[in-house]
């Protein structure tokens, strides 16, 4: 049955179902218990599942991920929460050097099927240390998978796939999306990793959009369509693995592409997608690939400046217009 759930409710439902169905699943993180999670995703879980399964930790990001790794090596399915993506660098060693490499270094003897959930809070005036979005850092970490749901439907489906993964998964939520509503089936469906979603079909321009930018791209497409343009919006949903085929097929059709993302332009996910398009579809391009991303400066606190800083639908429209003029 299809109901409307918020993005936050969809994640919460996926987590709760996992806890109910699989006794090997447990959650570990800061303030996920009595406090209910910094974003209230796990509210009420402590009462429902108890403190062994909803494990409140001290402020120890490296040990949270390390403990998840150790438990996973013993056959459990830990879901760790790192409150803000900005804190991932503190546990980056455990995530990138340990979780992602253990299978390889052990010659395939060991597996680390952990999920690390985190979120980025760009757009909420949280300042430079609480808003950062750094997904591209993980593109250079073989062994790790990275999911970036943009809708409630994708949030639940991707999470269910993450649960089945035998690899470590970094599951990056966007806190500005927590209250976005959308249809979510009641049953436990799965969205496979590495399968981009064409959020909207179109013929003139392809917009590859990541996480929050999917919504900005769709809003931009609507406005542009009123002017007679047909826009295709593609959401890769996972950047590792990245479904370059769907993107390339779209570029072959439209000949024009814009990549919209919240991360910094330099070395962002868009840079990787750009390179892959050039490798695979250079001859089909009718215009330069254009990236709409955050500038290479830390995120300003001032809400007005932050708004100026953020990529949005207007910047996408501008990019499309200059693409077509060029």
């Amino acid at each position, binding site marked *: 049955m299809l109901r409307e759930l918020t993005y936050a409710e969809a994640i919460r439902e996926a987590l709760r179902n996992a806890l109910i169905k699989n006794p090997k699943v447990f959650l570990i993180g800061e303030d996920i218990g009595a406090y209910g999670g910094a974003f209230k995703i796990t509210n009420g879980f402590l009462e429902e599942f108890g403190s062994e399964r909803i494990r409140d930790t001290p402020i120890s990001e490296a040990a949270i991920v390390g403990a998840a790794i150790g438990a996973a*090596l013993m056959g459990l399915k830990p879901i760790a929460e790192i409150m803000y993506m900005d804190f991932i660098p503190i546990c980056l060693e455990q995530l990138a050097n340990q979780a992602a490499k253990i299978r390889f270094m052990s010659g395939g003897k060991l597996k680390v099927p952990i999920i690390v959930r985190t979120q980025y809070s760009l757009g909420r005036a949280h300042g430079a240390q609480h808003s950062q979005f750094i997904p591209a850092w993980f593109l250079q970490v073989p062994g790790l998978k990275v999911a970036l749901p943009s809708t409630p439907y994708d949030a639940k489906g991707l999470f269910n796939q993450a649960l089945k993964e035998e690899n470590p998964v970094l599951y990056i939520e966007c806190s500005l999306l927590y209250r976005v509503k959308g249809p979510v089936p009641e049953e436990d469906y799965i969205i496979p990793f590495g399968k981009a979603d064409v959020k909207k079909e179109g013929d003139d321009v392809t917009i590859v959009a990541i996480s929050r930018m999917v919504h900005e791209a769709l809003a931009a497409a609507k406005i542009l369509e009123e002017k007679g343009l047909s826009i295709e919006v593609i959401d890769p949903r996972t950047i590792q693995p990245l479904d370059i085929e769907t993107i390339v097929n779209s570029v072959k059709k439209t000949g024009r592409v814009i990549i919209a993302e919240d991360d910094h332009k330099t070395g962002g996910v868009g840079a990787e997608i750009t390179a892959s398009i050039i490798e695979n579809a250079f001859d089909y391009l009718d215009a330069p690939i254009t990236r709409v991303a955050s500038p290479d400066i830390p995120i300003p606190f001032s809400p007005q400046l932050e708004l100026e800083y953020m990529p949005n639908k207007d910047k996408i429209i501008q990019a499309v217009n200059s693409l077509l003029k060029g």
Partner: protein
Amino acid sequence: MIKEITISPKDYLKLGLTRDKLVWMLKKMMEIRFFEEKVEELYLMKGLITGPAHLYFGEEAVAVGVVSALEEGDLIISNHRGHGHALAKGIPMKEVMAELFGKATGTCKGLGGSMHVAISPERGSLFASAIVGSGVPIAVGVALAFKYEKSDRVIAVFFGDGAVNTGAFHEAVNMAAIWNLPVILVCENNMYAIGMKAEKAVALKSLAERALGYGIPGIIVDGNDPIAVWLATKEAIEKARKGEGPTLLECKTYRLKGHGIYDQAKYRPKEEVEAWLKKDPIINFKKNLIELNVLSESDVKTFEEEIKRELDEAVNFAQKSPILSFEELKNYVYA
């Protein structure tokens, strides 16, 4: 809450250790020593082994003492200086040697190398991390799983004196302490982290005092005496199995060689080295066991021959083993 455990060799036989176990301990220590001598030879003289190799020369009593206190089902996590841990845990010499050669028959199919040789979950040697301190949080997670599954297994994690100054160590020990997890924290204080002296890196009289900050017991033990290490580990294990949490063992020992095989260790004062050579754990343990009539000089000779023969076979095996094909590598990245 810091105590010291010492034992006089006269009392070795009063502790409930069988003669077989004592003999096993000596043999294992000899095996590790001969193995390291062979590695040094293959590396320096023959150039058959490359890459970093951190020898366990002089520290044999720690691995052997700890491992002999563990039981079936208990696990260890090792670090970059893991040849001794691997052998103590019963990983066959030839697998360890083949890993040093980067061969497909090695413990990690040649993808781990010297710093990860001690990865053999089937033999209770779960994992080895070459990032200093980083195995400790992982051990805490293993212990968390033991507790979650309501088993009474324990995990011993080995790390050096340098590791007690890393963030990972502190976060992890604190976590193990607040949740009373069954972790045996084995600090192998060989007095140096590469060239950094432990006493300069820590403003405490002993590293065991680190335990005080976490409300857990700390034990100082002679790391050159396998029996003292065994006793201390046994005490820590008993506590851990009862759900009383982790213990920090500071095993005071000495790295008789450089940090890595290529390191001449010129920063060590000559008198210091000479003093520790007199405390060689193998020479002393052998002498003690002979004096206690547990074995004879000629038994020791026989072991020596056996080990050397096995070692030659291991080298032969490693040399003849194939390497993985490059195409296969991608199969080990994702499951």
